[in-house]
């Protein structure tokens, strides 16, 4: 584990926002993630992909903030997809019973294809 300084970047792909949390996902960084998603939700985006390829480590506060994003999307009948999760991250979510509340894909493109198919 080499926890990098946390940062969040994002891009819009069609009608879906792709979010890239990088580093250690804790309370402070979790808040930035919630804010970043909030910006897209505020602009009417209901499909969000969180790409965890650069997330080194997460703690329970980071997880609870991810739950906040899931709730925000659920309130607007949106969808959250998680991609590029390490086995450790997937197992951690599984331990907490979170996996059944999100759609998980191995890669970002799989998630985008899935979301496109849902539109058509």
């Amino acid at each position, binding site marked *: *584990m080499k926890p990098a300084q946390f940062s969040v970047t994002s891009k819009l792909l069609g009608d879906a926002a792709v979010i890239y949390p990088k580093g250690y996902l*804790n309370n402070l960084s979790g808040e930035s993630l919630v804010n970043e998603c909030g910006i897209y939700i505020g602009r009417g985006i209901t499909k969000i992909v969180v790409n965890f390829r650069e997330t080194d480590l997460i703690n329970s506060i980071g997880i609870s*903030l991810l*739950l906040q994003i899931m709730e925000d999307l659920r309130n607007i009948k949106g969808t959250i997809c998680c991609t590029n999760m*390490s*086995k450790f991250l997937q197992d951690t979510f599984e*331990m*907490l019973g979170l996996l059944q*509340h999100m759609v998980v894909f191995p890669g970002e493109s799989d998630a985008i294809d899935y979301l496109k198919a849902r539109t058509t």
Partner: protein
Amino acid sequence: MPAISSLGLYWLIDCMEDFQAHVDKKDLYWQIVAAISAPVTAAQKSGKPVTVMLDDFDAAASLYESSLGDAHGLVSLFRESIRSSLCPHVMTGSAGALDKIFADHSLIGSTEQMRLGPLPEDVAAELFGAHLANLKIAPPPAGEAKFLSVLKGNPLYIRNLAKAAWKMGKKALQEKDLIECYSFDVTDGETAFYWSSVLSRHTKTPEERRAALKMLMHALEKGGLEDSGRLSLLSGFGRAETGVILAAMQASGIVRDRDEVLRDFIRCLHMREIEGRDAGYARQKIETAYLSQSEEERFELVIPMSSNAELVVAKAVEQIGKNRNLDDEFLNYLQLALIEVCINAMEHSGSYEKKVFLTFITRPDKLEIIAENAGRPFSPEGRKEIPVEEKLRMGMKRGWGFKLIYAIMDDVKVERVNDRTRVIMKKNLTDKEESQ
């Protein structure tokens, strides 16, 4: 006698005849007086100072003539001899019990207390070597005597361990022999005899002794003797009687925090007198524990309760794991568990000290991590688990920390030790090594 007269020690003959006269008259009181004053007489008659060493002087509180309790205040018989400038007395005993004795009106102002610290490591090793040399036993080679640190420089334990080696017929010692002799000493040796006598001296009946032993074991496991209700249940006596037993134990000096030898003695005695095990079983338990410890490594770390300090702990456990060639993914789980325990301490303790103390103990088959912090008590037992579906609807989405810790670690224990919360987490390491 010829030697005594040739040296001109006629006063010594007088002393002995005087004592014999009291013996003939079966006068126990004056026998005690004669014995106590003999060193002073020797000093006065010879003109040379005589130092008197009185070990376990707290036992003087229960001096008696022919049966226990038939005479009180016999300790005052020491008053005259203690005050003699030619005859300094060095009395040893447990601090708590001596406090009580030195408060006796006859001794007030005649004594000065000194607390004895442990011998430094090199002096302790020298003393052990000297005892072994007297008993014609070869000392352990350099690097094979690490186990001696368990004795914490206590001269009594050092001497008793040497004697145990002699009783066991050892001619030379390696680390393993030391552990074997030690297990004998705390089970059947002189250390066991010493502490067992202390326990007997401060308990009046076999039932009280059993009650005291149960409470001592409780203190050892729970780290204290605060809960009087629980102690009363444990002892089988009422609260008041339990309080009396407890006070007697505290005065005897048998309630101690950092005396590992005493703790092992209590463990052994509990196995034998409460659990009904035999001495062989108790010895084996002690030996196994120390043999596995001799292969352990211990790391300690203190972190401030500040943002991202938990990452320092995560980094530490990563390196400890790498030293042991542990699998990366497995280490990620350990890091998460540790991060959670630190966050919990930071968020819930409200500690003014604002520090988390961590100890990592690695053994060939197990990793033990102890996290400790001052502040508010915390117990995960009372926490209700809320399903994810409900959390999604509620404002409060927290409360995952201990769920993760329990899921990741093999054994988790949360206890309160004085004003501190201690979390002990264990993880088996078998099959967790990285495949080469």
